[in-house]
């Protein structure tokens, strides 16, 4: 029973089985397949490997570290049965329609507020649309209404705009109010 077959990848029994996922800091996570496949990247790997999938020796994730993956897993657990998200935008202004978050999701982001960038990157690599879009929306929420100085401070960004660039922004954008 060392090698488990992963054929019939959509079967409910398979979702209940465990798979070991190894992050780039060599931490092993034992995860239910039904939870792991919220990530399309992991799901694809499970499907591609098919027969040769060795559930006990696991799947390596070279681009995600343990502490972040732990947070991502929390999301996957909560969203394992969630429907696909629908991305919509205002036809006139092109503004993306904001998702309404559940109490759980709000709390999740409150908890990991200082890791939004890492979460977005991990969600992008792991292809978890819900986490990816929601995190980007959260980042936008943090930027909304803030001054450039506040944004820089919040994200630790250096002001590397040259005087010419600043003058150019002022000159070309009549709506710029400074």
């Amino acid at each position, binding site marked *: 029973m060392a090698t488990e077959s992963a054929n019939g990848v959509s079967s409910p029994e398979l979702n209940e089985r465990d798979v070991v996922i190894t992050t780039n800091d060599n931490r092993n996570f034992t995860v239910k397949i039904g939870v792991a496949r919220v990530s399309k990247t992991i799901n694809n790997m499970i499907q591609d490997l098919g027969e040769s999938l060795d559930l006990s020796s696991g799947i*390596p994730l070279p681009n995600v570290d343990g502490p972040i993956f732990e947070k991502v897993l929390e999301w996957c657990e909560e969203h394992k049965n969630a429907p696909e998200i629908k991305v919509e935008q205002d036809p006139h202004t092109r503004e993306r329609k904001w998702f309404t978050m559940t109490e759980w999701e709000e709390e999740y982001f409150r908890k990991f507020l200082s890791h939004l960038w890492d979460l977005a990157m991990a969600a*992008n690599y792991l292809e978890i649309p819900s986490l990816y879009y929601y995190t980007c929306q959260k980042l936008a929420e943090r930027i909304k209404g803030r001054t450039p100085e506040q944004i820089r401070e919040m994200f630790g960004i250096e002001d590397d705009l040259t005087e010419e660039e600043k003058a150019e922004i002022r000159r070309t*954008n009549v709506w710029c109010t400074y």
Partner: protein
Amino acid sequence: MAGNEETSVHILQERLAILEEQNQIYLQTINTLSSELLTTRKRTVFSNPDVGMKLRKIEPTCSESPNHSAIFQESTSKLLPNKVELDAAHLPIEILVLLFKYLRRDDLDRCRRVCHQWNALIQEHSRNLPHRQIMLLKLIDKNHISLEAKTLVHKKKYSFSIEEYDRNNEFFSKLKKLLRNSMVKRLIICNLTFTDEFVRRLREAFFNQPAQINRIELLAVNLMRISPDVFHRLLGQVLKANQYFVDGVRGASEDHFSSALFDQKGVKEAEDFTVYDIRSVDNDEIALELGNDVNNEFFSKLKKLLRNSTVKRLIICNLTFTDEFVRRLREAFFNQPAQINRIELLAVNLMRISPDVFHRLLGQVLKANQYFVDGVRGASEDHFSSALFDQKGVKEAEDFTVYDIRSVDNDEIALELGNDVLLDLIFGSKEMPERNSLYLDSPEVTSSFLEECLKKFFNAENIDRMLNHVEFAHCREQNVATTREITLEYEHPIQIEWSTINQRTGRVLEARISRNGDGDNFCHLTLNLQPIN
């Protein structure tokens, strides 16, 4: 020259050799990589098609084979061009662009001032990022020319002396800048004298506006110096809008408001077009020129009545329909915000209208929930052929009643609807909304129609969309054989009733024919679907 060419060929050959060598290394790498790593690598490449994702902190995955991992890392980065190491000032592009889409334009304006990367990104992706919504843009000539733009948060106002304005440059360059990455909801142009040149520059400024203007108001503008043709294009193309409001125009000619104006796409498609008080250079009133027959006033009154109104019930009585009448009716009813509830055509004459246009009149121009047609004269069989029931409006109507149709020679006209068409109508279909009833006069059915209908009901898989009540007047005498499917309820010289039960749902359909006792070969057929008890 030949020497130059040789050198470049030489350089290319050298490059090719290097590439081949690299390729060889990669192939070796691939061969020596373990199967898990291979899969991971493949996945890494496929999951980043847009290259926006920046890899970060790539560290050896397998501690036992650090060499492979090092090569793996290199090959991965080669396969991902644009790879930028992430540090505090350089955030991943894909994530930034996505989060920018959640911001308003004035937030984006502030974001441009955060750092070089953000500024460059916002400019590069500007067309796909949210636009500024200008709630109101005003171009006004009042002592001096002013340009005023309001968003929900900002207000910009510029004034130009007549001399400055005549040079035009500054006025229009400001306008262009205001419109950059913006869309206009409402535009007011007040007191200006239009010229062809003005329109040309306006077009330049409004070119590539991301969305159509919602409402345009031209107030007290002067058309003395603009050609009718250019004026038409101004409204219909340059400043296309959902609603037009034109009031107090001076210096107009009749050509400015001729029917050619209504040939313009923008004007034709507008949900609202209002024009008041147009005067010529000599202060004469100018009427909207929309054709010149006697009907003009009738239809212009009708149009005015219908403006911003909805009609619940429409009765057309005693009129003779023509194709032209329908065309004008369509104009008047065009863009009615809601469907008419009930239409009654009483004693109308179809002598001068083609069947095709008549079908469109009922099915499209005057789409309604309920149709009642009684006492039609001058009809041909084609007017009431099954093509009429192909019309969306008629097919979807909840009620369609037709009585007493006669030809020019006063012959009765039968509805050219055979058993099949009528059975389809009665049993409904998924494409059709729920309809309640159907009343028809003289349908063209065979004597076995009722029997077919009852048998079909007995076996029907789905009767969800079935009509509750159907009546055919002047229906051909029906022969119904009592079988295990059909029960004879009672029989009387002037009335017979049958019933049958749908096997799947247990619902009951009652059918009754009544004879008037005149001895003619017609009966009155009634079908009643019993409600679920």
